[in-house]
């Protein structure tokens, strides 16, 4: 009897342990489901603000506008229908609050009950008009022409050069400025961090004595432990003014400061992984090199470094992964301009920073919200690729 109870307890314990270890898997699956469910919703959304339509005069031959075109029109960059394949007619932009220019308040009625009729007549009277109006006014009695709205496509997202998520009437969700900002900042950060990280790793593994190592190791750990907001804050109050003076910039918040801060943040990862890799070099290989008359430095760069190359590569790739996903520090120092950068000294904006900055203001379930979740998907996929390639590099090393 006692034995049976014991066996039962053992079995239950194992099941509980097994269940706990399944939770990480469950979490990853849930992350994928929630991120993609919300994110993919963007691609079936209308490219015009919810509940609104664009209407033109009935005689106008133009049937539809792309989001870029309608932004050009409403920003007064496109001024003639000819540019959009229509008649040689000036474009007259009309928003609902412009109605007072065409009709006095009395004719609209006390409760604006005549507004749809007045609106209809204004649109009918102006051959060059384009009106951005609520859908409810464009009912069956409406005599103007309603432009067909498209849906946001994968092409317009991945190939889009503009990120104007709150533009009206057509918000633009283009990935290019954000992904290029992310890559510029992360890659340059690794370019800064790699020489330093490698130097410290070699120093720790090859040169430093036991006592020095015991001092440096906790320092590296501490560097890894400082929260990213504190790095961001330090960058904001120290590095931003410094870089601004140094390069004589209009604003100091730039991709460069972001890269420097990210480089400092990526250092502990790079140092630890690279040092481990250097340490795995077999003693026999070093001794063979030394026995052939090579000195310590020659042994390091002819034997140790080539041998640990895959580990060092893994360190660099892991560092890039860290940099790509880092949010707060970059958000605070890199200026957050969502334009395709042409130099590292310009303000830039990364994917994580965009999510952090905009999600608070995006209404839940709206297209802006969905677009930010789609950015989350992109980020998830990017880091997944990086994590898989590190795994790949490590297994090849063992083989």
């Amino acid at each position, binding site marked *: 009897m006692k034995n049976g109870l014991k066996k039962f307890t*053992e079995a239950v314990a194992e099941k509980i*342990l097994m269940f706990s270890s399944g*939770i990480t898997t469950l979490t990853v699956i849930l992350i994928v489901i929630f991120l993609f469910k*919300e994110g993919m919703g963007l691609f079936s959304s209308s490219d015009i603000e919810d509940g609104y339509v664009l209407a033109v005069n009935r005689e106008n031959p133009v049937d539809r506008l792309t989001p870029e075109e309608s932004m050009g029109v409403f920003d007064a960059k496109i001024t003639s229908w000819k540019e959009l394949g229509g008649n040689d007619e000036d474009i007259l932009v009309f928003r609902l609050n412009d109605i007072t220019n065409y009709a006095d308040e009395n004719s609209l009625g006390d409760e604006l009950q005549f507004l749809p009729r007045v609106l209809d007549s204004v649109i009918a009277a102006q051959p060059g008009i384009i009106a951005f109006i609520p859908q409810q006014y464009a009912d069956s009695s409406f005599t103007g022409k309603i432009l067909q709205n498209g849906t946001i496509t994968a092409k317009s997202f991945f190939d889009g050069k503009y990120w104007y998520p709150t533009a009206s009437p057509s918000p633009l969700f283009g990935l290019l400025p954000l992904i290029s900002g992310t890559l510029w900042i992360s890659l340059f950060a690794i370019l800064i961090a790699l020489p330093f990280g490698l130097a410290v790793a070699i120093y720790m593994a090859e040169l430093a004595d036991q006592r020095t190592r015991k001092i440096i190791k906790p320092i590296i750990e501490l560097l890894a432990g400082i*929260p990213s907001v504190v790095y961001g*804050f330090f960058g904001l109050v120290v590095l931003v003014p410094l870089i601004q003076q140094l390069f004589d910039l209009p604003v100091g918040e730039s991709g460069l400061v972001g890269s420097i801060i990210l480089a400092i943040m990526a250092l502990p990862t790079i140092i630890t992984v690279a040092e481990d890799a250097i340490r795995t070099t077999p003693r026999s290989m070093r001794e063979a090199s030394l026995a052939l008359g090579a000195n310590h430095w*020659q042994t390091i760069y002819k034997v140790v470094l080539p041998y640990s190359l895959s580990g060092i590569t893994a360190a660099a790739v892991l560092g890039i992964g860290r940099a790509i996903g880092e949010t707060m520090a970059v958000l605070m120092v890199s200026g957050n301009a969502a334009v395709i950068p042409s130099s590292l000294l310009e303000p830039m904006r990364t994917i994580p920073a965009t999510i952090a900055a905009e999600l608070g203001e995006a209404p839940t379930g709206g297209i802006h919200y969905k677009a930010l979740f789609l950015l989350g998907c992109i980020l998830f996929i990017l880091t997944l690729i*990086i994590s898989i390639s590190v795994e790949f590099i490590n297994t090849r090393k063992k083989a």
Partner: protein
Amino acid sequence: MKKKQVSQNIAFWIFRLFSLMVVGILFWILGFIISKGIQVIDWDFLTQAPTDGMTGGGIFPAIMGTLYLTVGSIIVAFPIGVLSGIYINEYATNNWFVKLIRIMTTNLSSVPSIVFGLFGMALFVNTMGFGDSIIAGSLTLGLLTLPVVIRVTEEALHAIDDSFRTASYALGATKLQTIRKVILPMALPNIMTGLILSIGRVSGETAPILFTAVAYFLPKLPDSIFDQVMALPYHLYVISTSGTDLAASRPIAYGTALVLIAIILVINIIATLLRNYFGKKVKTNF
């Protein structure tokens, strides 16, 4: 012969210089924040609520908020993480389930913290209806720490020599008894060290709680786990980037940064002491 020696000297001095610079960067950051922050910190700063639109008063609600969130995430992550670590190291054979768990744990640890924020918002805040609250923030932070806790436990258990396990079995102990009476007590110091370090991580995270737990300003402390909180890292972020009067709230920002740094320093010192103390007492490997 001589040229060889010269190039070695140059290379080694470069390594020493670079290492010194990296150490210097840390002391620069620490020194800057400590010297600026120390002028602000006094008893009132730590025990009063903010006043005058974040330009006066203290940061007490933010300290408490961070405490609540950290404790909450520990409650989520530690039991699950330690149990998973035990399963992976002690029970699991090399089958597909364990391979899956390993891959998924590695993947989860590489997921950026802002993605956890998005996920927490979609699942805990919106779908489960917790709203911005301590519980939603703690769950999100807990899941974020989970891979770290698992890895720490796994490594601590892995370091224990197999002879202890076989000796215990030879005495007639079952697997569960062996784990409870022999393996866990031996691994505990290492597990504790890792867990303490992970607490430091959690207390400084901002991105995951941005949309799941925090508020810019709350006049009083939360009453239940379904209330919003203020938190130190978020507090530092808002008052240094988007406060009503940036210049006037700068001293508060320095003070907040110092408190955050102090937490990390204390946690690291405790972890190091613990490791040194137990490292001498317990030999895990022959």
